[in-house]
């Protein structure tokens, strides 16, 4: 047995290249089935809810009360699935990192790339790109499919109406940022179950607890909740639909801040802890 030195191996570059690291992360992400299944699940949730909801509205419009007809928002209705897809993207964001820790792959990764914040950054970039593309495709898909299924006399929306384009684009954006938040949590917690539990706790359980509080305390807190921020972002007329809330882009900035804090803490902890 002899080792053959291939020419490329004899003249290594002195440093790891960012493009190489991004390709490596992409290979890692696409080469496990959980990625594809999670994204398929997300597509079913987002598109499926739009299809079922809009078909139901078209069929039942004639028998709907006047109040329901007046408050019906065709854009927000078609994007209802985004709210549920928050959970799915969270699971994917957790798995792309916790699976490395759970299986021990992280040690192979870190021997190949000793700079840990760089590993996290590369993973975040690739994950952000994938989740943004998928999020936008699904958000626009849900919107167009939903509007196509809404038949007169039920009203339907077009992208040129006020707030509609922002709501649809925003649907994809919140999916990406929530996924990054989950990725940060998973890097801090390092266990799939624990990370998914704390993500679900933040997204779903915390708003329920806040709602149970006296409204004088609960009301001002609610607008800080990621769940509320997503609702605002995917609504064309949030001040009407939702009570106390930040404007869509202020809320979105806050969401970005949450994800950034999670990722920075994650990076610091990666450096400080043994792998």
């Amino acid at each position, binding site marked *: 047995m002899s080792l053959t030195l291939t020419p490329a*191996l004899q003249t290594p570059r002195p440093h790891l290249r960012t493009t190489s690291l991004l390709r490596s992360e992409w290979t890692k992400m696409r080469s496990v089935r959980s990625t594809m299944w999670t994204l398929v699940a997300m597509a079913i949730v987002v598109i499926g809810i739009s299809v079922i909801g809009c078909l139901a509205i078209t069929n039942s419009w004639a028998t709907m009360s006047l109040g329901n007809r007046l408050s019906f928002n065709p854009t927000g209705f078609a994007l209802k699935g985004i709210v549920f897809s928050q959970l799915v993207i969270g699971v994917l964001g957790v798995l792309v990192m916790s699976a490395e820790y759970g299986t*021990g792959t992280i040690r192979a990764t870190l*021997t*190949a790339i*000793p700079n840990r914040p760089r590993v996290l950054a590369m993973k975040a970039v690739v994950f952000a790109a994938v989740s943004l593309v998928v999020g936008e495709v699904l958000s626009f898909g849900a919107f167009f499919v939903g509007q196509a299924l809404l038949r007169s006399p039920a009203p339907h929306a077009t992208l040129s109406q006020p707030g509609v384009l922002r709501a649809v684009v925003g649907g994809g954006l919140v999916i990406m940022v929530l996924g990054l938040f989950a990725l940060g949590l998973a890097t801090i917690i390092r266990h799939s179950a624990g990370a998914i539990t704390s993500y679900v706790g933040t997204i779903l359980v915390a708003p329920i607890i806040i709602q149970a509080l006296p409204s004088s305390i609960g009301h001002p807190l609610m607008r800080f909740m990621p769940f509320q921020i997503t609702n605002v972002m995917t609504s064309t007329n949030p001040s009407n639909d939702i009570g106390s809330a930040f404007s869509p882009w202020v809320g979105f900035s806050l969401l970005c801040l949450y994800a950034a804090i999670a990722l920075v803490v994650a990076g610091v902890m990666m450096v400080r802890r043994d792998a």
Partner: protein
Amino acid sequence: MIEVRGVTKRYKEKVAVKDLSFEVKQGVVTGFLGPNGSGKSTTMRMIVGLDAPDEGTATINGKSYADLGVPLREVGALLEAKAIHPGRSAFNHLWYLAQSNDIPRSRVDTVLDMVGLSDVARKRAGKFSLGMGQRLGIAAALLGDPGVLLFDEPINGLDPEGILWVRNLLKGLASEGRTVFVSSHLMSEMALTADYLVVIGRGELISSGSVSDFINESSGQFVRVRSPQAEQLATLLTGFDAVVVREDDGALAVSRLSAEAIGTYAGDAGIRLFELSPQRASLEDAFMELTRDSVEFHGHGTQSAPTNDTELLAQSVTSGK
């Protein structure tokens, strides 16, 4: 070359490695020997930068692991079996590592071929046996064609043919001028594979040096003698400062005298000898003796040490060399 200088590692209250220093030279196989839980894996993880030492430094070719520009081209490490995502194929596991360090795709196929996993390269690694997992780990270590290689317990889970393959692989890598550092808790295996040994117990260095020095220094040699006039012979040899111990089968174990001297004295005194055989204590015995006080987890099932087994090991070690 790997240099470990005054490394100490604590996990909460427990000291895993204590002021450990040693060197691993290129061109030879250096065995890293110690009982389970003695700090071998911790030390190896510190060398490749996964764990940070509390004190001291570990360097590879004079640099700390984090300062290696393209690490896989300089260092390859097998740290644990089956540290692979069960849903990812062997090829993709190696391919993502290769991509990160700008290693060409053809090299992935080459190492898969070297470890004999080409046929199952596209299968999900979750279905792999422990031995196949080890082979994949070895392939990952060889990926960047590095000059420094670390293997933590590489023969675990391998069948006899696999063990022989690893043995030859390690020797081959060393003969090409590479630095090869391999840990094991099996002294007998190290005796067949390694040229140099670093022995630790409870995280502290017990001994280091060449395998042959190690055997000579850490255990006495003796000569086994059988004679119909055993009593007379024992008295005679004791007179020449020998230490004589009567064994269970009536033979004498004589130390501090060579076989030649014993034969000469017996001949001069007219004592008949039926057997005169120099014995080497096995490496396993030497290892047991060295680490007796530093074994972390003692079994309490059986009482005495199995002398017959160590005899057998002694024979297998000497015949194997």
